[in-house]
């Protein structure tokens, strides 16, 4: 393996891992409050489409990122209303959000099919190379989220709600309110993750362009044991799998591109199997269960 090849794989894995990391962090914060969001893929699609559309309109990719974050937040709040406000089944509501995101992103992105935007500018902030702002902010975002969850009163309350909402309620917390806040933050991050795909990686909009990254991110939360710092490692591994495959294809390796595209999905499944084997206790105890108040 020559040096330029290794360097290309490394920088490309950081680049493709970034969108995955934001999405993973977004799912993680919601799950810490006890809510599984299977609609993350839909949120990423909405983020990718809204970010691209806003950038085309305004000509400024940073405005695009903001639009994507807000759109992602709105999507997650819709899920929150159905799950927290109306007591709907979380998995079904998440899948509804998935379909919603798929349809809505198609509608938003349609006028911009084939359009080209100037994506996020690359900034050479250090010796490591020139990356866009979202890449530079990814690690700080993970650290910040870790501090928020494990070192603040808000985080303590959030984790309490995820473990046992009835006890958190008895201790004077408001489970519903905390879950709404967690979902809002999660939608923000998920939308940004989607926008990184359309504004920094592909620089185009295409129907269903997230190609299952939302589901891989949900699996990464399990891999990360619901810890933002482990999520960084997971996102890098998957970024590397994707990068290696792209670099091999670019160099004309004699392996079918279809077989190589399968790698991330099969890798995800394999990791889940091994994780299921080794430990299951890291999940928030009340994950996936709705809280209907106490008598």
């Amino acid at each position, binding site marked *: 393996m020559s040096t330029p090849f290794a360097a290309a794989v490394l920088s490309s894995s950081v680049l493709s891992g970034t969108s995955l990391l934001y999405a993973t962090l977004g799912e993680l914060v919601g799950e810490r409050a006890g809510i599984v969001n*299977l609609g993350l893929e839909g949120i990423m699609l909405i983020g990718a489409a809204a970010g691209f559309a806003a950038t085309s309109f305004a000509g400024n990719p940073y405005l695009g990122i903001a639009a994507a974050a807000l759109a992602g937040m709105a999507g997650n709040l*819709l899920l929150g*209303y*159905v799950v927290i406000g*109306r*007591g*709907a*089944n979380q*998995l*079904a*509501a998440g*899948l*509804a*959000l*998935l*379909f*919603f995101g*798929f*349809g*809505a992103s*198609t*509608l938003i992105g*349609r006028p911009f099919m084939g359009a080209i935007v100037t994506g996020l500018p690359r900034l050479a902030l250090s010796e490591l190379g020139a990356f866009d702002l979202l890449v530079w902010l990814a690690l700080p975002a993970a650290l910040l989220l870790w501090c928020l969850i494990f070192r603040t009163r808000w985080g303590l309350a959030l984790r309490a709600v995820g473990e046992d909402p009835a006890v958190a309620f008895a201790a004077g917390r408001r489970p519903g309110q905390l879950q709404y806040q967690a979902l809002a933050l999660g939608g923000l991050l998920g939308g940004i993750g989607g926008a990184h795909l359309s504004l920094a990686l592909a620089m185009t909009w295409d*129907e*269903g362009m997230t*190609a*299952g990254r939302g*589901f*891989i991110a*949900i*699996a990464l939360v399990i891999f990360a044991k619901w810890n933002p710092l482990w999520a960084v490692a997971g996102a890098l591994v998957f970024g590397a799998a994707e990068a290696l495959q792209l670099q091999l294809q670019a160099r004309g390796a004699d392996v*079918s591109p*279809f*077989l190589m*595209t*399968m790698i991330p*999905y*099969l890798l*995800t*499944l394999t990791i*889940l*199997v091994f994780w*299921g*084997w080794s430990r*299951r206790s890291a999940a928030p105890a009340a994950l996936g*269960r*709705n809280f*209907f*108040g106490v008598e």
Partner: protein
Amino acid sequence: MPRDLALALRSPAALAVQHRVPRAAAIALASLAIFAVLLLAAGKDPFRAYRDTLLYVFGNAYGFSELLVRMTPLLLTAVAVALPARLGLINVGGEGQLYMGAWLATAGALGCPDLPAWLLLPLMTAFGFAGGAIWALLPGLLRAAKLVNETISTLLLNYVAPLIVSFFIFGPWRSAESASYPQSPAFVEAARLPSFFGTRIHLGLIYGLACLALYGLVMSRTRWGLEMRAIGGNAEASLRLGIPVAGYVIAVMAIAGGIAGAAGMAEVSAIQGRLVAGLSPGYGFMGFLVAWLAGGSAAGILAMAFLFALFSSVGDILQITQGVPYAVVNLLMAVMLFIVLGQRRPSRSGA
């Protein structure tokens, strides 16, 4: 007799139907109204699309027959979701299972082109069933061993199956006569499911209706159905009663996958006549919504599959006449699911 009839009508089941049909119609209309608002916001004309759809579907016999063609795979993919749902399992992998069924059925069609139709078609059906069954067996095994949740594993496998199909039609099975468009060679006549009345309505519709009827019977009239409902209600208690829970999980997932695989076989054999990449416009996912909205009842699946076939025609019309991508209908379906989910009041029992 009148007394019996009155009693029957007052029975909970009859009451439920009396209330359910107008309620479902109201929900469908509300979804269409919200979807219309969203389309208007995007600068499209939803009313023209609705009118065009109604004219196309109910204007002549052929349009209506196309609706039944659309409905056929939905019946099968919905049963593939409803069956495991009775055990409390969420099979979101119908799309991948359909592709694998189509893939293995194609292997049968291309491998034994000399067989007569009465042998080849059952063989292809069995292959299609097996393809889908294998694709659902893995999540079933992982779930039974308590290693991976079946929701996430079936979702992930959805992305792998179309890649296997693409690998074969771009590679080993690539047809020589259509170099520009990747697809398998055309099937021989004996490998095509018969269609009826000069339309595209095909034997797959009978597969779908038979599966649905069988599903309803097994659930309500057999020991299997009773035990499955018991597991769905309380797996721990069922295990203590001596019901082989893990065995049910594995077998039911495989059978469900096989049913979705049969839908894939019917699509390649009756509609396409060869293996192509864009085989399904999301039939597997739509089947999930159909089964969920029907609440697992066989009659409900029939009605919802019809409704979703109609929705899907709206998507076709929008794409053809107004240049709106077909995938936008996902929005319509999601709105309907959200309305239904939002209606269930918070209840302490948690159902």
